[in-house]
């Protein structure tokens, strides 16, 4: 079993953090993982993406030609990565910000308004966690509880119970959106 995720969006949308949480949860689940970021020197407003590979065997390349899962948080990300997704894979489209759906019909497409869901929970910055919750449900590789505990680990240095709580709600909301 090998799954590869590309999480892509504007800098500031939290795709790097979402990827880190996914990778941490994968390791906690006993899988081999790699997390490879790709972003420019600028952060907020630039484009950012990261690739997470989960496997039950040692991972060769952390650079992936054809990811099995794409999380597209904005249109440029969908435009850039849609054609690369492996046949039979999954694309999550952030329909709050992306007006079109996927052109591919040989894979699973999830149109989820992750920003709107996050806003309804009171924190638009939690859109990344909504998206992560959705792909966790759709792929079924990692239990949601491990994602939640990895998220707590990642955010613990911020010492912010409120932040953890809203992210937990966002993961649940994303999980239940499909």
């Amino acid at each position, binding site marked *: 079993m090998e799954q590869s995720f590309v999480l892509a969006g504007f800098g500031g949308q939290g795709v790097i953090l979402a990827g*880190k949480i996914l*990778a941490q949860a994968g*390791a906690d689940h006993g899988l*081999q*993982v*790699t*997390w*490879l*970021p790709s972003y420019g*020197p600028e952060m907020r407003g630039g484009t950012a993406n990261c690739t997470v590979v989960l496997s039950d065997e040692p*991972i*060769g*390349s*952390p*650079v*992936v*030609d054809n990811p099995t899962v794409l999380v597209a948080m904005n249109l440029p990300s969908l435009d850039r990565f849609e054609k690369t997704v492996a046949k039979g894979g999954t694309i999550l489209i952030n329909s709050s910000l992306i007006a079109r759906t996927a052109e591919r019909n040989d894979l699973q497409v999830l149109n989820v308004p992750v920003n709107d869901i996050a806003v309804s929970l009171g924190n638009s910055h939690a859109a990344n966690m909504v998206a992560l919750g959705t792909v966790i449900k759709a792929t079924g590789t990692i239990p949601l509880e491990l994602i939640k505990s990895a998220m707590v680990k990642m955010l613990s240095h911020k010492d912010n119970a409120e932040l953890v709580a809203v992210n937990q709600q966002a993961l649940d909301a994303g999980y239940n959106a499909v």
Partner: protein
Amino acid sequence: MAEAAICAGCRAYFGYPITPQNEILEYMAARMPAVGGAFVQAESEVAAINMCYGASAAGVRTMTSSSSPGISLKMEGISYLAAADLPCVIINVARGGPGLGNIAPAQGDYFQATKGGGHGDYRMIVLGPATIAEAIEIVMLAFDLADKYRVPVMVLSDGMLGQMMEPIKLAEPVDPGLLPAKPWALTGASGRRPNAVTSYAMDPRDLNRINTKRQTRYRQIEEKEVRYRETETSDATIVVVAYGTVARIARTTVKMARSQGIKLGLVQPITLWPFPYAPLRALSNQVNTIITVEMSAGQMVEDVRLAVCDRAETPFYGELGGLVPTPKDILREVQRNVS
């Protein structure tokens, strides 16, 4: 890599910020004081490497790290370390060059690392890790080799290794107090003859003798310390040679090629100096084609061709400027050479 250095007993780190190696500096700033070591963010790369010279002369396991442009600035200091027979570990988290280049992963520093870089007749052991787990082992090995042969050792990694994450197991930490004694170190001359650490010998006959002795040590290193990893080479008809990040990407290419019936093997040089000439020479009698893949315009390929001569075809595939080849990119080159 920073924690591996601490595990290896490194207790003096000197650095200067540059992307994509700032994580090492940042980690050391917090960690080194916690283990009772010395951390200095120096005023420049030149200062940092010369602080290593001082710490090493005092007998301490010492390290500096930087990325390509910063490593260029350290070259004078590396030559002095080599000339003074001082152990030191230098990590290069290489980026796109030449010049300021960019902060993406690249392998354009191979010549600089393996063929000199600094002035004079010196050699530096150069080790190329492909994964973070390998980097942990290699950093620990680097300290042992540096002490054993009294030479500077470079760990030549790249921006991808510097930025990515994967789970690793750390080795048992070494107690610096239990490391082999360094009778040559400057530890205070009370009760013994003073030691001298210098790179200076005015009389040509003296310098000739000192340099010849050092060259003898280099020959020992070439004899005993060559390290490489072969994957699926035993029945291979075509072989890829790659080091570092490209080697791990090529491991996936080997799987893809094998599933298509192409008998592809992979040779990953781990010591870039001393270079594994002998195993490549042996393979050149078995296969028709040995493809070198690098994130450069073709540097290691010169060593591959030196090993292979005209016993096999030696095409080259490289990506420049910080672009990273994917498993499919490498497979395409393999297919091109099979058909």
